């Protein structure tokens, strides 16, 4: 811990001395981009301690594995002539794995923002050329991109399986593109909600519990209601409208109506008006989350 030796009055000078910096200084946009990549790495625990890798990587494996299995099954059964389409529609995959996706968001959304709030690191960011809007945008984009990667890789894996099984390429490609669009929507909606909840508390543990509770409870409640009303009452229309009330069923509804996917919920949006409403609400949730995040970070005392 001794300071750099000063230049000796005689003899060899080892002290490098202080070197100024004359090189380029990047502007806001590039800095925001650097924060984006840094946060994206953090979403998967890359570049951090081994412990912070366990959860995201473990969940990534849990979410990817079934897709791998499905891809293999596709190839095997198609080669025996037993199949002419994939066993599981690409677009249905996020919904099938939704508990795991919810846990991923529950752990990684707080990782992205609660730490900065808890350790009070925000003043260090904001005393730099970065503005609050850059911070929020970078974090939101990073988490959404992370979730998209989480969903896209399994979907693409199943697609490759379908191609290897020599299923009709045009049809499969069309399906996979639509599924990826759906995955993008899921990412935006879930990341927005998760980030907003996480930013409300500096206590990471509570943020995790709150996010998972909201995502899982809402799905559970909506499914339960749809079950009773849709099947018990045979009122699929109302059951369909109920899908607006949970993020997962909301995006599933948009997928079903706008992208022609099979519904994974008990009931999809009944009719075109409902479909439009679903799309509108989805857009509102995304934009609304972003705006609320901006407001939250404007209010945070630095």
């Amino acid at each position, binding site marked *: 811990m001794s300071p750099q030796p000063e230049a000796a009055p005689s003899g060899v000078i080892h002290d490098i001395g202080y070197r100024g910096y004359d090189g380029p200084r990047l502007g806001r946009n590039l800095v925001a981009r650097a924060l984006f990549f840094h946060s994206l790495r953090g979403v998967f625990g890359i570049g951090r*301690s081994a*412990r912070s890798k366990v*959860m995201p990587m473990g969940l990534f494996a*849990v979410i990817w594995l079934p897709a791998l299995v499905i891809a293999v099954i596709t190839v095997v059964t198609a080669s025996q002539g037993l199949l002419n389409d994939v066993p599981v529609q690409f677009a249905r995959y996020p919904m099938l794995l939704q*508990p*795991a996706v*919810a*846990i991923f968001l*529950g*752990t990684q959304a707080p990782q992205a923002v609660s730490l900065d709030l808890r350790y009070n690191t925000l003043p260090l960011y904001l005393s730099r050329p970065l503005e609050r809007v850059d911070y929020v945008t970078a974090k939101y984009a990073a988490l959404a991109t992370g979730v998209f990667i989480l969903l896209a890789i399994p979907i693409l894996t199943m697609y490759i399986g379908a191609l290897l099984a020599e299923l009709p390429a045009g049809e499969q490609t069309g399906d996979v593109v639509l599924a990826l669009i759906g995955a993008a929507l899921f990412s935006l909606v879930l990341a927005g909600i998760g980030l907003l909840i996480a930013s*409300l*508390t500096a*206590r990471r*543990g*509570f943020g*995790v*519990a*709150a996010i*998972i*509770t909201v995502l*899982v*409870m809402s799905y*559970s*409640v909506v*499914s*339960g*209601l749809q*079950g*009773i*009303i849709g099947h*018990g*009452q045979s009122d699929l229309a109302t059951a369909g409208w109920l899908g607006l009330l949970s993020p997962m069923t909301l995006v599933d509804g948009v997928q079903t109506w706008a992208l022609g996917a099979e519904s994974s919920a008990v009931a999809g949006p009944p009719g075109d008006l409902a479909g439009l409403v679903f799309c509108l609400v989805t857009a509102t949730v995304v934009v609304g989350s972003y705006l609320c995040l901006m407001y939250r970070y404007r209010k945070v005392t630095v």
Partner: protein
Amino acid sequence: MNSTIIRMTARAMLGGRRIYLLAALSVLLLVLAVLLRLFADLSPDDTAQFLHGVSLSTLLPLFGLIVGTGAIGPEIDDGSIVYILAKPISRAEIVRSKLLVAVTAAIAFAAAPTFLAGAIMAGTSANVALGFGVGALVAGVTYSALFLLLAIATRHAVIVGLVYALAWESLVGSFVPGARTLSIQQWALSVTEAITGPGVISSDVSLGAALVLLVLVVGGTTWYAGERLRVLTLAGDD
């Protein structure tokens, strides 16, 4: 049981944001029950399915998680647990006191609303309300004890608990039949089945086995939590 610790824990857990989340969930359950009763024709089966899916499978584990970790997690996080540990109170007593608060909260905010929701939706038919109320109570006690232990044993208790409550119990439990014997949900369901009578709901675990496992788990986790508290190392660092 130490009344000061009980008071402190109660104040910490129920003050601030946590109580809003807990209350919101209970209210949600009750509102849903009322709406369903008003607008839908509910058979006892419907009620049972609903309570199983929403309350036992989802609400109870999450509640147990929130109150079990909330009873001691924040104190460990910010280090103020030191003040309690420095007093001449046995570790087991500390655990029991905190568990009491957690269980009371779980009963008040999860088990009782479940019972009420059942009563609203199905009246007294087939003892559904009573069955699920008791099942929820049993589940609440067990989950609270389990998550209290996790909060002491690992710093990432919430995450570990979540993986168990959601992934293990629902995913693995659905695909690996043997695993269902080890699911708290199934034990609670077994108790419910015993009360509602057959046909409404079925559990894969016999009542006798369930009761034994429940007592073992609650007793074991409570005891082990005391042991872990004894050797708790506070990290100011990670």
